[in-house]
């Protein structure tokens, strides 16, 4: 969150290609697994890019598709949903519902022309801090390559 200024700057300088583009990614993380993993990753002093801003939810199934839409609309370049492995949901079956919703949403986005890599669903258990770091790094790199989404310019009716 402290990066806001940097992001602003990068957005400004994209055209000039002087300052490298820093993507803005929103992470909706399940409190029981991925969020815990991010916490652990922190205490374990793991290094990963600071581009992901985390919103804690009780369960990945709490993530209403509209949140994702809104995130993109309000300037996010990517959205990461982190849930428990299938079968390990703290709420029995929440992650299955998430899986179904995200699959649908991805279809919608692809029709709109939003690149697939911008929306990512990952199962990361609390112990998988290494995976957490890898996913963050990987996603940041991919979105960085895709460049800014610029929802307002590209997708909203003028």
């Amino acid at each position, binding site marked *: *969150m402290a990066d*806001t200024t940097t*992001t*602003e700057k990068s*957005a400004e300088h994209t055209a000039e290609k002087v300052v490298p583009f820093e993507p*803005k990614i*929103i992470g909706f993380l399940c409190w*029981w*697994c991925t969020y*815990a993993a991010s916490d652990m990753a922190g*205490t374990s002093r793991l290094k990963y890019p600071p581009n992901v*801003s985390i*919103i804690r*939810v*009780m*369960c990945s*199934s*709490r*993530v*209403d*598709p*509209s*949140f994702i839409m*809104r*995130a993109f609309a*309000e*300037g*996010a370049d990517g959205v990461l949903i982190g849930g428990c492995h299938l*079968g*390990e949901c*703290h*709420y*029995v*079956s*929440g992650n299955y*519902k998430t899986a179904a*919703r995200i699959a649908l949403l991805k279809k919608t986005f692809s029709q709109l022309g939003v690149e697939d890599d911008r929306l990512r669903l990952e199962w990361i*258990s*609390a*112990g*998988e*801090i*290494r995976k957490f770091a890898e996913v963050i790094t990987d996603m940041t790199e991919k979105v960085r390559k895709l460049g800014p989404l610029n929802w307002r310019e590209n997708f909203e009716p003028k």
Partner: protein
Amino acid sequence: MEETNEKLVKLTIDGIETEARKGETILQVAERLHIDIPTLCHYRFVKPYGACRICSVEVTIRGKSRFVPACSYQVRDGIEVQTRSEEVIQHRKMLLELMMARHSQVEVVRKLAHEYGVDTTRFEEMPSEGCILCGLCVRVCSEVVGANALTFVKRGTDRYVSTPFEGKADTCIACGACAYVCPTNYIKVEDIRDRKYVFSELSLGPTTPIHIPFAAAIPGIPVIDSHACIHMQTGECGICSKVCEPDAINYEMQDTFEEVDVGSIILATGYKTFDPARAEQYGYGRFDNVITSLEFEHLSHASGPTGGAFVKADGSEPKSVAILHCIGSRDKNYNEYCSRVCCMYSLKIAHLIREKVPDADIYELYIDMRCPGSGYEEFYNRLLEEGVHFIRGKGVEVSQMPTLATTTPAASNSKLYVKCEDTLLGMPRELPVDMVILSVGLEPAEDAEEVARIFKINAKGDGFFMERHPKLAPVDTLSDGIFIAGCAQGPKDIPDSVAQGAAAAAAAVSLIDAGEVALEPITSVVDEDVCTGCKTCLVVCPYGAITRDEEKGVAVINDALCKACGCCVAACPSGAISQRGFDDTQIEAELAALLMS
């Protein structure tokens, strides 16, 4: 007995008039009257056989008298039995003489014969090996035990008792019943290293169906192995219940599932040791004298297979032993973590060996000595003084032949060679030793993953259970009311495990003590004005916490059942449900703040 409808018959035994049930044998009736009839082939748990004929008695029926064996002759009405008439005695003497000709060296025969004044035989003596062919062992084995491991072979004078094809009997269960009933002690059960042997050719299973699970088991009560027990298999036998005087045998006892309602659970499911067969270079499983630390514990235990003697596979005493630390621990190939206990127990092993074989050369091959406990470092120092060789350098390979040109092969070819790099000397070394002990590390229990799933808790990357917080909540888990303790959480030694166990117990007790549990404050609520009663939320709720109020035509959420996942909030098509603390506006605000540009 008198109440049954069975017919009673009247008879006279040695002048005593008595009554008996139909179907009883003379021997049974005589026993009741305390009349002693000698017999060599009768045993109360097997069917009468009538082979030795020593029990022959004279029976007079309708004026005619004849000799019958008391063990198998069933009483009839009006018979008169003489068990000690002159003829009977003469007759028995003759049979005993015959017996003596064969079995004069057999104690039971000699004693019985002596009772009848038969000390020599007029017949040519042909001493047997001691088997009097009474058939008790064969019959017990088939009738009572049901194992059918013994049989008579051939017929007539060539007859003898053996196993099928004289080989090892695969059906023998080592119950030892044959030796127990054998009147001559011809059949012996030998106990060689916790395997029982009857004769030399009968190699028997490791244990009997009834056994105490292991030495020093608590409680020291024998158990019945239902897979080996004849009664459990066939319904036969049941001899243990017949001989058990306190009548303590219960065949009906079964494994039962018991459901206990609890408010909190402590998981202390322990660990398993690293299987060194995975690390082939150490030769475990290939070389007889490479054993694990746990096997050493078993071997050196006073109630172990050798009674505590420390010996090699061939039974000889090892004169040099190498103890290899960090097997499966601190190794990128297997487990990266330190198992924490190996250094100390390796020291203990060295100490035990020093005690049992004072002149043995003992090598400890370590990466680092980790002795961070109360009195641990002192113990290490003591070992140093005891003359144990400490080599700083991990053992890398165990082989039967030296691999380094610098190594001089030992005179004995039964040596094992342990290769390592002595980092203090800065050179590779190869130690010829008699025995190698692998200090294996600790790993999560085999079923840890399954347990984690059942209790909805998480495991760390190494597979041990994850605590809620490493510092602030070391025994809690992310699931309320579930606590962890001991090696289930990670390798630790006994003092640490005890401490953690106590902590977990205290945490559990604190819940009980409070007497009430705080509910999730973040449950979902339905805005009845907006809800259309479409029932979508009813389907998605995993806890069945949502019902439809038919009167109002809206969904109702039961606060006590709701676990606050928020699934319904996301699913509600009309946006009638919101979650306290996580409602749409809050999250959107969060989003907005994050993406504030």
